[in-house]
């Protein structure tokens, strides 16, 4: 081995020559369509199509302000959960327990002694209890996942089963009626003519959008989903962040529980059954990658609206749940397929 590679660049080097050809410039329009806007455009078109179908088949019954508000009210609870879910999925995780935790939180917050205590103090106590239950469940999930290193799917599956059982035990399998007046008044009231339920959804969406896209918290979330090990080696406390994420989605389930209590005036262990699947479907159809590393709150909101509009169009047309299920299945596959077409970047191997 006489020859030695060690080298220095002679100063005569033409600097531009070394650069690989500029690949991904494209024109502005292409970049836009390939990016987030393009992905959301697909969703907007899908939603618009659904609305057209609704308008044609159900006419004025569909195309009126009250009905749209109805759709949004209907979307709001699953919407809040989906926003929390967007964060964990963006970080490469998943939370199957959201529905069940929501049921548990609704039960605990409507226990008779909690309501009695709220009567003594303020209805905010019930809200606090629901958020605390959600947060605590999330904390357990997060610790088991981050420190116990149990895959999120299994850890939260266990929580799904366990929280539902706990909710049944606590409620004695009975529906608990909310009679706390302050609570009912607030959550059944509106602000500027729009139900509080809807405001909560809107506020959660704005906060979620801001948190994911504009803050250090969001940056860490995306980084963890993109490459966990690299993020850890960059000196970010990934475990602590993971715990925070599961607490976040737990709290969002707690908020959803409060909304559900307000909307149905009752707390029961059956609240939230299968919401996890609806939320995951909305998040992924919205364009968040299930493997992590890319998440979009706007997409999630559109995903939620698409599914709730679909339900509304079906009901307006007196169509059965069964047909709706079949259509929903097809929509999920087609939407994910389209997402992938839109999202396929140059540089991805086939």
């Amino acid at each position: 081995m006489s020859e030695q590679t060690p080298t220095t660049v002679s100063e005569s080097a033409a600097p531009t020559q070394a650069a690989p050809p500029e690949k991904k410039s494209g024109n502005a329009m292409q970049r836009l369509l390939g990016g987030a806007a393009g992905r959301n455009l697909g969703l907007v078109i899908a939603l618009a199509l659904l609305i057209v179908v609704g308008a044609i088949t159900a006419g004025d019954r569909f195309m009126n302000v009250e009905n749209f508000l109805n759709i949004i009210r209907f979307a709001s609870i699953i919407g809040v959960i989906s926003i929390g879910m967007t964060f964990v999925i963006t970080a490469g995780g998943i939370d199957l327990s959201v529905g069940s935790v929501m049921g548990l939180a609704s039960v605990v917050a409507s226990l008779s002694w909690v309501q009695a205590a709220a009567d003594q103090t303020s209805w905010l106590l019930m809200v606090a209890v629901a958020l605390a239950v959600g947060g605590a469940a999330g904390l357990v999930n997060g610790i088991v996942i981050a420190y116990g290193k149990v895959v999120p799917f299994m850890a939260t599956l266990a929580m799904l089963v366990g929280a539902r059982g706990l909710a049944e035990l606590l409620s004695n399998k009975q529906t608990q009626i909310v009679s706390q007046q302050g609570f009912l008044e607030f959550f059944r009231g509106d602000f500027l003519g729009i139900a509080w339920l809807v405001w909560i959804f809107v506020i959660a969406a704005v906060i979620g959008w801001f948190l994911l896209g504009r803050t250090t918290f969001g940056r860490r979330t995306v980084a963890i989903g993109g490459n966990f090990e690299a993020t850890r080696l960059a000196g970010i406390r990934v475990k602590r962040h993971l715990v925070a994420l599961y607490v976040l989605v737990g709290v969002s389930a707690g908020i959803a529980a409060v909304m559900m209590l307000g909307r149905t005036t009752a707390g029961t262990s059956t609240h939230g059954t299968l919401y996890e699947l609806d939320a995951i479907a909305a998040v992924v159809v919205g364009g968040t990658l299930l493997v992590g590393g890319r998440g979009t709150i706007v997409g999630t909101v559109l995903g939620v609206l698409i599914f709730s509009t679909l339900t509304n169009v079906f009901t307006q047309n007196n169509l059965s749940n069964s047909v709706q299920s079949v259509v929903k299945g097809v929509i999920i596959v087609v939407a994910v397929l389209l997402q992938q077409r839109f999202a396929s970047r140059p540089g991805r191997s086939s």
Partner: protein
Amino acid sequence: GTDSTSSGPTNNANNTETGETVRIGWSGPAADHGWLGAINSAAIAEAEKYDDVELVVAEGTNDANLQISQVETFINDELDAIVLLPTDGAALTEVAIKAMEAGIPVINVDREFSSTFAARVTVLGDNYGMGVSAGTYICEQLGDNPDAVVAEIAGIDSLPLTQDRSRGFSDALGDCGLEVSNRVAADFTVQGGEAAASQLLSAAPQIDALWNHDDDQGVGVLAAIDSAGRDEFFMVGGAGSKNAMDAIKSGDSVLEATVIYPSTQGADGVALARLVAQGKSLGDLVEQDVPTRIVLYAPVVTADNVDEYLPTAFTS
């Protein structure tokens, strides 16, 4: 309650007396619903009334496979009788026959088996009758208006009992020239009732009468009606929960009436199982044996008679 059976004048005067101890198995669907919860607790309470009954409870499930396994456990335990509220009547028929063949009488409650050989006694709520009662009540209220809009919120559509209720309802409405204009199905949960009702209300801007199959999901239905601010119609409930009866009594909601679907069927089943196992007969009847089929009455509760029924109401 089965108290009325206790004072039979005939050869059955000994029905309340403690007899030989019998072990009775009880299995039902998952008590994920107020009515089913009430069924469960009423059955247990009934068993506790008797010194000579030991109730073996296999807790509810919605999986036919598991429920079959539970019944097999009962057979293996050589219990004296089994009270079965099947998650699906047809699916549990086979194992019920197996129990009967093993000499264990089966009392079938609420959801009927597909073979008459599968049960010694069948206790049924009258689902068709419920629909008829609700339809008839609505006809009485709206009879003079042939264009009235009648809406229906059903329970779990895949259960035969839901189909029976809907059939009874539309048959009764048909008699007075009405029909169901909007129908949605919920799932017997508060959340499902709320979701279905809010969608229904937006689909039907003007309603005259609404029948909701189940008072438990009715909590959600009423919440939805309230948030939509709708009160142009009246509503009839189903099952007969305490909440519903309280609302009827207070008269400050659209809920005007409810059709009872007794939540004491399981308790009846336990009482009958005891009689069958001890070889006793049904008080007040002349028959030597317990009859094979008992169909319960589905009365309509309104503000007029609500006080009469409140004590039997179940807490959802």
